[in-house]
C-alpha cells in the first residue's frame, strides 16, 4: 500500500449548535493515498460535500467541525493536523497543498475579473517571490495543459463555455501543483461528452503531475471506471469502502448494491434496473441503529437497534476493504470476536 497523503480521522461536522444541531458528517475515517483517485459517492444530502468543505475548513456558518482531525503528509517534512493550523498557516496550506474544484464551475469564477487575473492572483498570494512575467508564464502553461489556448487568457468568464470554465477551474486548481485535489461534482453540470473529455484529461494530468484526487460525485458509474478506490456515504457515515473493482463485482452493503443496480452496465448480461425504495434520511431525525435500515430490503432486528461499525468483514478474505453492516458474513472482525 502506498503512503497516505491525507488522513481524515473520526471527523464530525454539525450544522448548528447544541441540541438543535444537525449532524451532517458522523465519525468519518478515510485515508487518501499518494497518487490515487478516491471516489466518494452517495445520494444528495449524504454529507459528501460537507465532508469536503469540512476537511478544508471552508464550511460556511452554521457548519461546525465538532470533532476529528485531518492529518496532512507533505511530500517532505512532518505530517500535521489541518484542524490545528492558525489562520495564516491555513491560508498557506490552502491551494498550495490541497486545492478544490467546486460543484458549479459556472459560478466559481468571479465574473468581473479576467481569468488571467484570477489565476495569477493565487500564484501571487502563494509565491510572491515570482516575477510578474514568470507568473503569467506559469498560468499560461497550466491553461495549455487543460486545453485552453493562451489567447483566451484575457477572456472574462462569461466569454467562455461551461466546459472551458471547468477546464480553467481545473487548471487553476493545479497551478500550484498541490498534493491533493478535492473535486466536488466537477462534471455534473456538463454534458456526457464534455464529462469524458475532462475526465480523460484529468487522468493524464494526474499521471504527469502525480497528485491525489478525492472525487466526490453521486454518479457511481463514473467512479467505477475512473477511481482506484470508492467510499460510499450514507446519512453522514461511510458505509462501505473498497477497491473499485471489488465494489463493482461484489458490493457488501445493501446500499452500495442498490446504487450499483440503479445504472445499467454497458457490457455483460442484461439485468433488471432497480432503484432504492424510500428517500434519504432526514438528518434531524435519524433512524435508530443503522440509518439505512428503513429502506434496506435485508434489514433484521439488530439493524434497528445497534449502529453498525465500519470494519474489515470477517467472513471473507478481504483485507483492504471495510463495510458497516450487520448482515451475516459482513460483520467486522473486531466486533464478532
Amino acid at each position: 500500500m502506498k503512503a497516505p497523503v491525507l488522513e481524515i480521522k473520526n471527523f464530525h461536522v454539525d450544522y448548528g449548535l447544541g441540541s438543535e444541531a444537525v449532524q451532517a458528517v458522523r465519525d468519518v475515517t478515510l485515508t487518501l493515498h499518494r497518487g490515487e483517485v478516491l471516489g466518494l459517492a452517495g445520494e444528495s444530502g449524504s454529507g459528501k460535500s460537507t465532508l469536503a468543505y469540512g476537511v478544508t475548513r471552508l464550511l460556511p456558518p452554521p457548519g461546525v467541525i465538532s470533532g476529528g482531525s485531518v492529518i496532512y503528509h507533505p511530500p517532505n517534512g512532518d505530517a500535521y493536523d489541518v484542524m490545528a493550523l492558525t489562520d495564516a498557516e491555513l491560508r498557506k496550506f490552502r491551494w498550495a497543498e490541497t486545492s478544490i474544484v467546486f460543484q458549479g464551475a459556472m459560478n466559481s469564477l468571479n465574473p468581473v475579473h479576467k481569468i488571467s487575473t484570477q489565476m495569477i492572483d493565487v500564484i501571487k498570494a502563494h509565491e510572491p517571490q515570482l516575477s510578474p512575467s514568470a507568473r503569467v508564464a506559469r498560468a499560461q502553461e497550466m491553461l495549455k495543459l487543460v486545453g485552453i489556448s493562451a489567447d483566451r487568457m484575457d477572456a472574462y468568464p462569461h466569454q467562455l463555455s461551461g466546459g472551458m470554465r471547468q477546464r480553467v477551474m481545473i487548471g487553476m486548481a493545479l497551478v500550484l501543483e498541490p498534493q491533493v485535489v478535492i473535486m466536488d461534482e466537477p462534471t455534473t453540470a456538463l454534458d456526457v461528452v464534455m464529462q469524458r473529455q475532462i475526465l480523460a484529461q484529468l487522468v493524464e494530468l494526474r499521471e504527469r503531475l502525480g497528485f491525489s484526487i478525492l472525487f466526490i460525485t453521486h454518479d457511481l458509474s463514473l467512479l467505477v471506471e475512473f477511481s482506484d478506490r470508492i467510499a460510499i456515504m450514507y446519512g453522514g457515515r461511510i458505509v462501505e469502502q473498497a477497491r473499485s473493482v471489488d465494489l463493482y463485482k461484489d458490493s457488501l452493503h445493501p446500499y452500495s448494491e442498490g446504487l450499483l443496480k440503479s445504472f445499467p452496465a454497458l457490457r455483460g448480461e442484461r439485468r433488471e434496473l432497480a432503484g432504492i425504495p424510500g428517500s434519504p434520511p432526514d438528518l434531524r431525525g435519524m433512524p435508530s441503529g443503522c440509518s439505512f435500515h428503513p429502506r434496506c430490503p435485508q434489514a433484521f432486528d439488530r439493524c434497528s437497534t445497534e449502529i453498525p461499525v465500519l470494519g474489515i468483514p470477517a467472513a471473507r478474505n478481504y483485507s483492504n476493504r471495510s463495510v458497516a453492516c450487520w448482515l451475516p458474513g459482513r460483520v467486522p472482525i473486531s466486533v464478532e470476536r
Partner: protein
Amino acid sequence: MKFLLQRLAFYVFTAWAALTINFFIPRLIPGDPVTSLINKFQGQMSTEAINSLYVLFGLDKNASLWSQYVDYWGQVFHGDLGLSFTFFPTPVADILKQSLPWTIALVGITTFASFMIGTSLGVVAGWRRGSIMDGLLPVTTFLSSIPYFWLGLLAITLLAGPDSFFPSSGGYEPGLVPGWTGSFIGSAIQHSLLPALTILISSVSGWILTMRNMMVTVASEDYITVAHAKGLSERRVMVSYAARNALLPNVSGFALSLGFIVGGTLLVEIVFSYPGIGYNLFQAVGAKDYPLMQGVFLVITLSVLVANLLADVAYLLLDPRTRKEG
C-alpha cells in the same frame, strides 16, 4: 463604442424633450410675470413701459407660441436664458453662474463623502455580518428616515445662534467679498458645516444599507468560497472579490445621485438660506420668475442627463459583462 453612441443619441433626444417641456410648463401656469412685476413696482409704470416689458420677457401677445418656441431654442444655444424677473434686470445666466458653484461645492462634496463613507462602512458591515458595526445599522436607518429639512431645522435650533460657532444662514459672512482669500474661504467652510452635516447624516445610511445588503448577497457566491479556498488574504477577498462585485449597483446609484446634486437638496438650501441653485428655484417659484425657473430646470435636467451618461460609462468600465463583443 456603438453602444455609447446609441446612448448618446438617446440622451440628446431626452434633452430635447426635457427642454421642450421646460418651455411649455411655465406658460401653462396661470398668472403673468409682468403683472407681478407691476405689483412689485406698485403700479407706478406707464403703459408703454408695461408693453415693452412684455416684449422683453418674450410675452408679447403678437408672437405665436411656435415663434416663441423657435426663439427659445435660439436663446438656449446662445446661453441666453433671458432676464430674471426677481433680480431684474440681471440675466438668468449670471445668476446661475453665481449660485452654481455654491451648490456644487456643498452638495457635491457631501454627496461624494457620503458615498465614500457609506460604501466603505457598508463593505465592513456586510463582510462582518452580525458584528457591532452591523448592529449599528438600525441607528443609521433611523437617522436617514428623518427628512433633510427637518434635521436642518433641528440643527439650527440646537446648534446655531448668535453666540454659536455655527452660523444659521447664508453662504459666507455678509461683510466679506467673494474671492480666493483665506478669510472668505474659512467663512464659507464655517457656513457650510451645518448644511453639509445635515445632508451627510441623512444620506449616508442609504449607501451603508445598499452596500451592506449587496455584500451579504455576494458573500454567499461560489467565487467567494473559491477565493477563500485559494488561500488569498481576507482583505484581498473582501476588497477585490466581494466589494468589487457588490459595488456595481451602488456605482450607478452614485452617478444618479450626482445628477440630483443640483436640484436634490432644495429644502436644505431653503432652510439654511444657502445661496445655491435650490434657493434660486425657491425664490423663482415665489415670484413667478419664468426665466429663472426655466434656467434652473435646464441646469438640473442637463446635470441629470450627464450623470446618467457617466453612470453608463462607469458601468461599462466596471462590469465586463455589459461590454458588447466586436
